[in-house]
């Protein structure tokens, strides 16, 4: 499929960034940050936590790129590998569900406090 690498890259990137958003979201309600990053690292994480909404926005944007790539009309006949296209669509949908769940979880501490 023509856009497979782009779709995989974008959704993979979205997954990575959603993990970062989760780290920002959970950093202040669990003691893991100090254990993993030390006191200085935990301070940096807390100081950067304000970018969490922007990181979540970036994950949505990357998911959008992934969906756009797998659902756009192929420009050439060579891009019409239907089986491959379905596989990538499943991959993007799976990643999208995962990313959205992680994004929601990253905001949970704000509302459960």
């Amino acid at each position, binding site marked *: 499929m*023509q*856009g*497979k*690498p*782009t*779709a*995989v*890259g*974008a959704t*993979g*990137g*979205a997954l*990575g*960034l959603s*993990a*970062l958003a989760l*780290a920002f979201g959970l*950093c*202040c*309600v*669990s*003691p893991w*940050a*100090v254990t*993993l*990053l*030390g*006191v*200085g*690292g*935990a*301070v*940096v*994480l*807390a*100081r*950067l*936590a304000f970018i969490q909404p922007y990181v979540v926005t*970036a994950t949505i944007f*990357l998911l959008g*790129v992934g969906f756009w790539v797998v659902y756009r009309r192929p420009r*050439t006949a*060579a891009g019409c590998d239907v089986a491959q296209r379905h596989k990538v669509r499943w991959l993007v949908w799976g990643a999208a569900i995962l990313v959205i769940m992680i994004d929601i979880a990253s905001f949970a*501490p*704000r509302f459960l*406090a």
Partner: protein
Amino acid sequence: MRNPLAPARSRRVLAIALGISALILVGCGGPKAQSQVDTPVHAVLLNGEDQPLRDDFNRDQGFVRLMLLVDPRCPECLRGLADTGDDVLAKLPTGARIKVYVVHEPVIGGTDKDIPAAAELLHTTLARHYWNPTGDFGRQMSQVLGLMHGSRPVYAWDIYLIYPPKVAWSDKDPPQASFMMHQLPGLDNQKFPPWDAKVFAMKVKETLAASDQKD
């Protein structure tokens, strides 16, 4: 026709996204993240009684007093301590009449072993540290400050208080602070301003200046 540049482009997208994540997280855990405390910090035990803190507070009348309530393992609290060290204490003139009390509470699993590394963030040996393993000081301060989320009391931690020089602790409970900031979700931000180190530093300087004028 297959676009020969596509794999490279996807690798770039993936690399940029993952790179940002990795750099931020891995960069956090550099050598500076490790504790560099040379001298052990002594934390006074507040075990169901406020007496040691009350005695220190009243002995220091004539000084502007800052009281910080934190969990020594909470990143937000550590950020508050670091900001207080960097933006407030480090910028005060030498000999400023100020005292700092840090009450450490075990809210998310902090222990007294975490206090030395947390204390280092203040960049001063002038602060006195207290360890309240029962956490009752937070409940007491919650009532004193009237911290509520709707009808539910909010435990007092990640809170930064300023007391003017003349305030004394005469009742059972600690006195009202002249200014308070916090990093807690759910509080009314009009009534309780959220943490802003620059504003806090300005308030500390104002309180110091007001006390100098009165003297």
